[in-house]
């Protein structure tokens, strides 16, 4: 079995008028870097939150490694949300202790190495760090895990181009090659070169799931150009 994630008729509606994800059925394989692409409000984040148990689907089911979303799947998934959860006056080192205690696949050594590369002091308190540095610490925490699935929600949004390069390098150099990386973004041109496959979403529906090579060969276009064509206003 090569499938890592299986969405089966997944729907999430907040009320009868607002359907965030509409009957999505999709199987994501192991060992791929997949872009979850779509304009704002297309349901990318909602889908990701359901994979991480932060939202409960209205109908349908999600399985990761054949297991329904729950405590067991959370041990397999390294999740980078679209917001900073590192607040207060805890030190970076305290957060590392926390991850070491809760995640069996977390490598403190790798995290400390990445922190050193970026010149982030492990004794620094979270409330003394800039927003950008907090985001980098959060990414380091996620990429220091040896997870089966990395789910990164808008990892390059709101950071400068140099930081984007660093983030993409961090993802490429640190993820477990057996694992799948799912990256949600609308900044396609920046991540296109690292993607194996793409999922297009619009109005909560699955529009397209194909490989990047397929788009280049069949459409003769880059993913970015094809995205602009599909989602032209």
């Amino acid at each position, binding site marked *: 079995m090569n499938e890592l994630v299986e969405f089966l008729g997944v729907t999430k509606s907040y009320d009868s008028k607002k359907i965030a994800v509409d009957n999505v059925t999709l199987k994501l394989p192991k060992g791929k870097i997949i872009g979850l692409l779509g304009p704002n409000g297309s349901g990318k984040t909602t889908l990701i939150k359901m994979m*991480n*148990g*932060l939202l409960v689907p209205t109908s349908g089911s999600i399985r990761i490694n054949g297991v329904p979303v729950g405590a*067991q799947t959370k041990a397999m*998934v390294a999740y980078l949300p679209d917001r900073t959860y590192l607040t207060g006056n805890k030190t970076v080192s305290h957060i590392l202790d926390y991850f070491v*205690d809760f995640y069996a696949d977390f490598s403190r050594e790798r995290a400390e190495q990445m922190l050193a590369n970026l010149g982030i002091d492990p004794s620094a308190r979270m409330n003394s760090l800039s927003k950008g540095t907090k985001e980098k610490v959060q990414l380091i925490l996620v990429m220091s895990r040896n997870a089966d699935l990395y789910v990164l929600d808008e990892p390059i949004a709101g950071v400068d181009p140099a930081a984007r390069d660093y983030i993409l390098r961090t993802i490429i150099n640190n993820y477990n090659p057996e694992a799948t990386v799912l990256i949600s973004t609308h900044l396609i041109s920046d991540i296109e070169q690292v993607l194996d496959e793409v999922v297009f979403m619009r109005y909560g529906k699955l529009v397209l799931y194909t490989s990047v090579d397929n788009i280049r060969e069949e459409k003769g276009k880059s993913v970015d150009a094809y995205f602009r064509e599909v989602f032209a206003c």
Partner: protein
Amino acid sequence: MLGKIIKYEFKDTSKICGLILLVIAVMTLIGALGLILPVKFMSDERNFSNDLSSGLWIMMLTMTMILYVIMLMGVTYGMMIYQGVHFYKTMYSDEGYLTQTLPVTKHQLLIGKTLVAGIWYLLVMICVGISVVLLVLSLAVALNEGLPSSSEIMEFRQGMREGLTMMNFRVTRVVISAILAALITPFSTMLMIFGALTIGQLSGKYKALMGILAYFGVMIVNMILSNIMQFIFSFGSIFTARVVEGSTGVAGAYDSAIIVGLIMGGGMYFISHYILTKRLNME
């Protein structure tokens, strides 16, 4: 994993909760001094003749006692509010994105958080009790210029024993009920706060506000249930002819607190668990 949750909950809350306990200690000291100094001054006949200064001492005594009572109430409610805010922040705000994605079950999360919050609240209750006892003792010291002698204590105990025997008062029964009620109440109180805040999550907007409103609703249910239980216990004692037993009323009050605590705490735990597993909505 439960042990790890408890460990980090204690780490995260120890600073503020330790400060609250320190406030109780400082208030006890101020309260004791505010009680001893005026009583000592006024017990001196030479000073008592001075109306102005004795008036000032009485005012100081009154103000200190008012401040002491307000502060004790403040720390008790302060601990409840702090635990509620801490729960909300770590479960349903941005920090919740970390807490809710930990590889732990919802039972482990709820039990860990309730245990730690309940233990802190229990500690506050114990410290408030010790503070009041110390204040009464300091008053005794001020009035007698020393702690009561062992013969005085023996005499007091003997008198109490005779009085309680006459009333057919079962001390052990009351003490056991009181201890059980004191142990259950802090945890059920925390579960009611956490449960109400979790119910607030069902709202589309203004989740925190809805949580506070839900808490008032829970408090009303709690009050109604307490009154029903009190009625059952007092009404039941008439029919079982146990009214002659002096301890029945007191023990009944504690028993009803235990039952209400178990029903409300248990109910709110299962509601919270249901919402966390089936209706979690981290928008």
